[in-house]
């Protein structure tokens, strides 16, 4: 009797106790009210599961995060302290909502949220009550973020039902994504996006706009708009990959949600195709001794003063190139012939130096500006355009003919120009400096392409300083001659030999023309080369007709008109042919051994476990041609064969954005560049500008597979 009374009194009391939660089950902060709640309609039965949950009521505009929080944030974490034998499951996350913040996207919850967790009681459970302790941590954000946490304690009676929050648990169950067993989902990795295809969605969903939430973090661009469509009963979507993706899962569970709380499902999508390998960036040239010896100007670690010194020496050497030597030597002889007006001489020398330095700076500045503007250019860019090559060939031809005596500038240019030249010797010298750079620049690419290509990748100030030093070095011999009369006096006295010398100097000029015609032929094919030769012929005729000192005025008029007409015809015929050939004319470069380079070929070779050696070359690059002899050495080729190295040639004779991009990736912007690409994660190794068989062999053994 007494026990019945006690039970009758106790039950409502217990019921009341459930209605009023123990104080330690609630944590209130200015942003949220968090409460540990439970749902056990049959009390605690051994071996059975009950529900626990963290109920978070957010203040307006504050939110917490889903299991994949999106671009930022952290998911709420629950750490249970339970009696032995009791185990808690994972959080059954309700479907989240999208929380955009500027250009970013997060996934989380506002308002009221219940995160349910299933608790399984041990088989031998026989206690009167169960004490559950929870340490929960959550990040709650509005425009600022506050990491919060709380310690919760809840004691559940074994015999009584705990149903105070039944409605909340029911709502949470409804809001949790339903696992669709009949759904089939695939995710295909294609280029920079995922192609999602899901079949078996509820029929009532067809045609509706769905929200897409991946459970795996760090894969997609969360903020990018979803491109989704229905193809009959199949839902398809294209989702952009995160460029800084940090996960490559084989299985991607995704949550799909109908608008306005109408329901959500979770589907486990299998990933098809392979994830693009997270790219291994190219390390710096790191083959130690093999690399550093031959390439002091090319090494990235070269200090600026050393680079300037080398540029100065390079500039001085430029004077010996067939392009520049004739111009320089004639200027020097003019110095020898001049009188004692030292000041005028020095002024001329300084003006020439200024012209040279400014022209180099202008050329470098143009290249840097174009590169900054996104153009895929490197040093030698001027020689990649057939039009530029043709113009240079014409220029050299005219200079050569002038030196050979076919025509005189005095007879061609109006007398007023000639008088102006005489009256302003300083300006004349400046313009001669500019001309000298114009004729020198095509010669720099062949011999200094890689070094200057490296200079261009330096910070702007340093790059311009290197080019200025180059110009100074080039102008130095002439400047020295004008500044120190003893030097000028050391030159031989003028005489008849000067005329012979002048004529002889024409031949290096013609040699340069031959080379430029060859380069043009590589770019435009044999027709383009033929067109250029025809153009040069007509140009020569015109130069003679208009400028020969031996012709009288009437003859000049007659021949001049004929020459002008022929020139016009030649231009009309030749100019259309001076365009890049549609099909690359790299047949000379491609033999059985060397195949054309492409990133796909490298990837395929790597897939086979083969090492790849790439030769970045160009027709107008003379260092490249010299190195070709090293590459064709039978011992070197035997080594390549023994190690099954794939030999690829990247021909940069004409503009090619892919090659330029790869050169940039290697830290270069000029040719030649020789690089080893081993399979596996190790990055490309760059060799020095002047190849030697020993260096190649050392590199092969260092990167031995």
């Amino acid at each position: 009797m007494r026990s019945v009374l006690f039970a009758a009194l106790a039950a409502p009391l217990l019921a009341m106790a459930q209605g009023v939660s123990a104080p330690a089950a609630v944590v209130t902060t200015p942003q949220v009210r968090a409460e540990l709640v439970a749902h056990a309609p049959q009390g605690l039965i051994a071996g059975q599961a009950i529900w626990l949950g963290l109920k978070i009521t957010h203040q307006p505009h504050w939110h917490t995060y889903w299991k994949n929080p999106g671009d930022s944030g952290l998911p709420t974490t629950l750490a249970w302290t339970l009696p032995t034998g009791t185990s808690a499951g994972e959080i059954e996350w309700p479907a989240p909502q999208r929380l955009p913040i500027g250009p970013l996207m997060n996934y989380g919850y506002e308002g009221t949220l219940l995160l349910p967790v299933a608790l399984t009681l041990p088989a031998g459970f026989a206690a009167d009550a169960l004490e559950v302790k929870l340490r929960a941590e959550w990040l709650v954000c509005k425009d600022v973020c506050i990491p919060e946490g709380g310690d919760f304690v809840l004691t559940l009676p074994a015999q009584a039902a705990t149903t105070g929050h039944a409605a909340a648990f029911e709502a949470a169950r409804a809001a949790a994504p339903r696992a669709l067993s009949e759904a089939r989902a695939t995710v295909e990795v294609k280029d920079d996006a995922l192609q999602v295809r899901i079949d078996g969605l509820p029929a009532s969903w067809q045609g509706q706009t769905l929200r897409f939430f991946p459970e795996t973090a760090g894969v997609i661009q969360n903020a990018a708009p979803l491109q989704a469509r229905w193809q009959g009963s199949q839902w398809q979507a294209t989702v952009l990959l995160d460029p800084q993706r940090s996960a490559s899962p084989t299985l991607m569970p995704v949550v799909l949600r109908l608008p306005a709380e109408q329901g959500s499902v979770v589907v486990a999508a299998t990933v098809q195709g392979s994830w693009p390998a997270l790219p291994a960036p190219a390390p710096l040239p790191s083959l130690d001794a093999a690399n550093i010896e031959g390439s002091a100007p090319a090494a990235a670690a070269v200090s600026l003063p050393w680079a300037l010194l080398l540029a100065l020496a390079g500039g001085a050497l430029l004077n010996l190139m067939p392009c520049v030597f004739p111009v320089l030597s004639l200027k020097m002889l003019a110095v020898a012939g001049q009188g004692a007006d030292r000041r005028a001489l020095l002024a001329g020398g300084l003006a020439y130096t200024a012209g040279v330095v400014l022209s180099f700076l202008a050329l470098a500045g143009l290249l840097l500006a174009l590169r900054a503007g996104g153009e895929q250019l490197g040093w030698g860019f001027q020689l990649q355009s057939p039009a530029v090559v043709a113009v240079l060939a014409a220029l050299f031809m005219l200079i050569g003919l002038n030196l050979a005596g076919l025509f005189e500038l005095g007879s061609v240019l109006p007398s007023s120009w000639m008088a102006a030249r005489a009256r302003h010797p300083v300006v004349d010298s400046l313009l001669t400096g500019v001309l000298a750079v114009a004729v020198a620049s095509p010669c720099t690419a062949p011999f200094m392409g890689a070094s200057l290509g490296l200079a261009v990748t330096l910070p702007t100030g340093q790059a311009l300083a290197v080019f200025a030093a180059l110009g100074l070095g080039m102008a130095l011999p002439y400047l020295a001659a004008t500044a120190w009369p003893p030097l000028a006096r050391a030159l031989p006295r003028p005489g008849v030999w000067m005329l012979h010398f002048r004529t002889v100097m024409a031949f290096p000029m013609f040699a340069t023309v031959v080379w430029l015609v060859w380069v043009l032929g590589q770019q435009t094919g044999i027709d383009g080369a033929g067109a250029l030769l025809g153009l040069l012929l007509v140009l020569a005729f015109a130069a003679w007709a208009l400028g020969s000192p031996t012709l009288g005025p009437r003859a000049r008029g007659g021949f001049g008109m004929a020459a002008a007409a022929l020139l016009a015809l030649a231009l009309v015929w030749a100019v259309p042919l001076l365009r890049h050939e549609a099909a690359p004319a790299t047949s000379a470069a491609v033999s059985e051994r060397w195949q054309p380079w492409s990133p796909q070929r490298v990837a395929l070779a790597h897939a086979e476990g083969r090492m790849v050696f790439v030769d970045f070359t160009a027709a107008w690059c003379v260092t490249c041609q010299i190195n070709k002899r090293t590459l064709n050495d039978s011992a070197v080729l035997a080594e390549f064969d023994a190690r099954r190295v794939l030999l690829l040639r990247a021909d940069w004779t004409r503009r090619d954005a892919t090659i330029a991009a790869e050169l940039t990736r290697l830290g270069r912007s000029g040719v030649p560049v020789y690089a080893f690409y081993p399979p596996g994660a190790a990055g490309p190794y760059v060799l020095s500008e002047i190849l030697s068989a020993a260096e190649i062999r050392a590199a092969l053994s260092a990167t031995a597979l």
Partner: protein
Amino acid sequence: MKQALIATTVALAAALAAASALASATVGQPAPAFTAADTAGKTVSLADFKGKHVVLEWVNPGCPFVVKHYSSSNMQGTQKEAAAKGVVWLAINSTAPEATDFKAPAAMAQWMQGQKAAATATLMDADGKVGKAYGARTTPHMYIINPAGTLVYAGAIDSKPTSSAADIASATNHVKVALAESLAGKPVSTATTKPYGCSVKYSSGA
């Protein structure tokens, strides 16, 4: 025909929307160039540091995750270690002026000084251009650029995404590891990790 038109308009709208979204700096590709003013008003460009390793740290003193790494001196320690190896460290604040935790340049400089930070420069990116070019999502968000200008690391400062400073000791500092590997000329073993922290408060006007 109409469908094609609608499809094109939608695609265009999507493209425009995406254009205002974050750009795509990618590990293994050249790091986007940028120019910004530091807290003293001096102009600083990424190109100024060509030939050196550069670390970019997105910072916001109002974010508890930034405070986690600064109050424990973890960030300052990483900065000092980097500086000793000749690495350039740029701390960048892309918080919009209208955000509640915006700090004016002078206040930002003062905060960095008070924290005894060892950054080479602190850049103010109030219009968010630099942040968007790099896809910076969180504070902190770390990037490492090698001397050739290639992005070699993007992601979190360490491996334990929590707000508690107690977790720092047991976490792997991704930046220290990546710098050590890159300075030795080796490829970075963990080149991308998921960054954690508060979202960068971008200006909505940009």
